[in-house]
């Protein structure tokens, strides 16, 4: 049972959290201006790197806040957590 450090509540067991996929995928300003191709990129396509990956988590059984985390997909080690709106910190994997 991994610990995930909620930026508000501190480390809690992963069972309290909900996964939200890749971070920093913004809802397009004007979806109607996008081609089908561009829209499909937004809806269906996500990165799948081997290594550090910025993703969103929600502390769903705790403070219900969404936040971002950089996880090394090879080890599951959480290299950093940061609040929504903050820039992704530099990490070393």
């Amino acid at each position, binding site marked *: *049972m991994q610990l995930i450090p909620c930026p*508000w*509540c*501190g480390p*809690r*067991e992963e*069972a*309290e959290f909900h996964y939200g996929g890749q971070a920093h995928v913004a809802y397009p300003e004007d979806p109607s201006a996008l081609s089908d191709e561009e829209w499909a990129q937004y809806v269906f396509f996500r990165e799948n790197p081997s290594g550090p990956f910025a993703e969103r988590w929600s502390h769903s*059984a*705790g*403070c*219900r*806040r969404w936040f971002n985390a950089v996880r090394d997909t090879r080890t599951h080690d959480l290299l950093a957590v940061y609040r929504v709106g903050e820039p992704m910190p530099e990490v070393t994997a």
Partner: protein
Amino acid sequence: MTVSPLAAWTDRLAALAPALDVTEVPFRSQLTVRVSDPDAIAAMGDALGVRFPAVPCTFSAGTGEFGAVEVLWLGPDEFLVTASPDLQVTIEEVLRGALQDVRGSVVDTSAQRTTVVLQGPRARDVLAHGCSVDLHPASAPRGTCVQTLLARTGIVLQVNDDGYTILVRSSFAEYFAAWLADAATEYLAVP
């Protein structure tokens, strides 16, 4: 006539003494407040006679116009105000008055959760069977308030001087009571 979620459990919970003193405190007034403006937070605190908690995962208590009131930190802009029964309508009005036009919300959630007070020599042991948060006094001193999981239900857990106050969603209350009674089995034989 009102019926509390654990009305049918009074005797079964009482039977857990002396290892565990479990009491439902029904019909408490509870209001969920969403607010982040510091002035509004201060105004709300003034109106209730209790300073809102500034530190995550804590609660504060005070006494004012509405008697003993507690304010629980639930999130960076989310609080739960709890007070004696039958005050929810007036407290909601007072909080709305304090909020004025500032961004935020006040919702009466009194029947959303029921309140259970857990005391006795085995209270911490019993919770440790289902709660992964460290409740050792060094890690969770009096005034701690965490939202977490107890076995398979969410709870809000307050650490008091002499035990714990647990808020559980009304629909999960019977599961919570059944779990608690079962967890206490071993301690009934050897209190």
